[in-house]
């Protein structure tokens, strides 16, 4: 059984088929790259996987169970987490709180425990704060745990989003252009961090990224999207040579970008 199975999934916005009859699967421990020109439908696929949108047709199975019709938070609970292309942090809250909010589904002390400050409150709060700091530490953000998210530099905001997503203890992590706006050194750094968390948390990752060097380097398999359809899939080496892909990128040969 695959971790994630997507069967003939489509969504239509008015006249536009943003995602058209897409089938793919992701296995445990795998990094799958999702690439394609602007407007190809990559982010829309993430929105469909996380139940932000409901597919017009098709099915999505996580661990063999359909998650179509779930709410987003249920999908998160069942093991999927994501980051956003246009950063959506809780801007006025500290970095630490951003991550602690990510833990929401995992901490279970009750409202009574909160209001009466029962032992379970103190215990859980302490534990999850420790865990949150540990995650921040992986991305070198521990020292800025108390800083408001909106005051962080762009690169750190992107990393903080990954931290928050990791906090929900996902099996499948969806990263939407995590390296956007980063310089080559930062990108390099990020890449090794992604590799590390994949091993450390035993994750499968779907990665949307325009930075070809990152994609080619880190992904085991690639899916290329154009106009909502899959136009190619395979190993990075194969994709580099694929004529359809090269045309889709409008005579912008991949070698040049890489």
């Amino acid at each position: 059984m695959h971790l994630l199975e997507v069967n003939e999934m489509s969504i239509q916005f008015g006249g536009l088929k943003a995602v058209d009859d897409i089938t793919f699967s992701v296995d445990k421990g795998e990094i799958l790259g999702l690439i394609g020109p602007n407007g190809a439908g990559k982010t829309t696929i993430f929105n469909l996987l996380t139940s932000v949108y409901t597919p017009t047709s098709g099915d999505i199975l996580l661990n063999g169970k359909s998650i179509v019709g779930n709410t987003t938070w249920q999908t998160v609970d069942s093991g999927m987490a994501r980051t956003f292309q246009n950063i959506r942090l809780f801007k006025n809250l500290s970095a630490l709180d951003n991550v602690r909010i990510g833990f929401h589904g995992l901490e279970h002390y009750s409202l009574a425990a909160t209001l009466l400050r029962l032992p379970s409150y103190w215990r859980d709060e302490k534990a999850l704060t420790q865990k949150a700091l540990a995650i921040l530490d992986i991305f070198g953000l521990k020292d800025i745990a108390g800083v408001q998210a909106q005051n962080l530099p762009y690169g750190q905001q992107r990393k903080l989003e990954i931290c928050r997503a990791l906090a929900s203890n996902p099996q499948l992590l969806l990263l939407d252009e995590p390296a956007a706006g980063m310089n080559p050194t930062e990108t390099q750094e990020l890449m090794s961090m992604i590799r590390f968390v994949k091993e450390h948390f035993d994750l499968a990752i779907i990665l949307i990224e325009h930075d070809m060097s990152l994609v080619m380097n880190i992904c085991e398999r690639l899916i290329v999207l154009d106009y909502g359809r899959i136009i190619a899939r395979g190993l990075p080496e194969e994709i580099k040579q694929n004529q359809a892909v090269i045309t889709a990128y409008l005579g912008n040969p991949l070698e040049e970008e890489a």
Partner: protein
Amino acid sequence: MPKKKIRSYLINIAAALLVFSVVYLALQLGWINSYYRSILILICINSIMTISLNLATGLLGELCLGHAGFMAVGAYTAALISLNSGLSPYLSLTLGILTGAVTAGITAFIVGIPALRLRGDYLAIITLAFGQIITILIRSLGFTGGALGLNGIPLLTDFPLTFWMLIVTMYIVYALIRSRQGRAILAIREDDIAAEASGINVTHYKMLAFVISAMLAGVAGALYAHYQGVLTPEKFDYNYSIDFMVMVVFGGMGSITGSILAAVVLTILPQLLYGFSDYRMLLYSILLIALMIFKPSGLLGQKELSQRVFQRLGRQLWGKKAQTVPAETDIPTTVVDEDTYLTEQGSGDSGVGGSSTRGQENLPVSGTPIAEAEGKHQERLGLDTQGDEPLARKQKGRR
């Protein structure tokens, strides 16, 4: 409970006791006449209302335009219990406060069902409608005394009761906000899509905050009924709801101590200014517009007047005594301490908010020396205004 917490809780309780004892003594010794006593009680009731509205508006981020309606539900419930139950006065008052909270909470639940599932400003409209309907309903129902209202409600609300109810309200909202439930509520205010993507059941927590907010308003209503002795439907009209909204905005959306400051100022001010009542709503509306344009964060922004603020001020003023202040309160950013990261949404610092010295004048701490020190030491105090316009940036991505 960690030791440091115990101490901080004890300090808070001691502070509350101190304030209480001073005022209570002054009342007992007759230094405060009955007119000012009733204003004191009103300040406490208004503070409860403002804090509770702040929970819905400042912390959850939903506009509630019918908060006086929930107060009315609590007030009428408690009054009817006192008038009809035949129990001993204080028993029926206790029962009234509890039942008032529950009925107001249930009402809020019903009001919230159509609106809170949806994204958008529907709660504002629904609560606006609710505020209108509830007065119509009270006027047309028989057992509420109709347009004549209810009379002869025993005057059981005194200063100690309202004061401690206010302290309880403060505690509830603080305790809520510094918890997983509270963080979920703040997350929804910040970005509901990201909140849901973090596993938060947005509708559930919106409802939780809204219902608790209404329950606290119900408590305030119960206290009000036994303070005023008479209830008429007109009292709880739209303008009354707006009064509390003005207090919330003025004090700072998200700041609980700010709410109290605003309730103090805006309860006393109308009493002081003769002929003010004609112009009150006009001035309020202009105040609101000006605040939204120039200082949407209100007096305190999202910050709180907390122990740390006073400690810092103390250190600035009496330099040497600083040694008595334990070092760990100095918030190194890596120390994990619930206070450090949770309530000070403003900046990770608990500076008394705002660049405006105008605002500072209203702070109880602003004796002249402090006001002077404030200017001089602004930098060293670490007062920063970065978190000052929390609202201004929130929804840019929405469109």
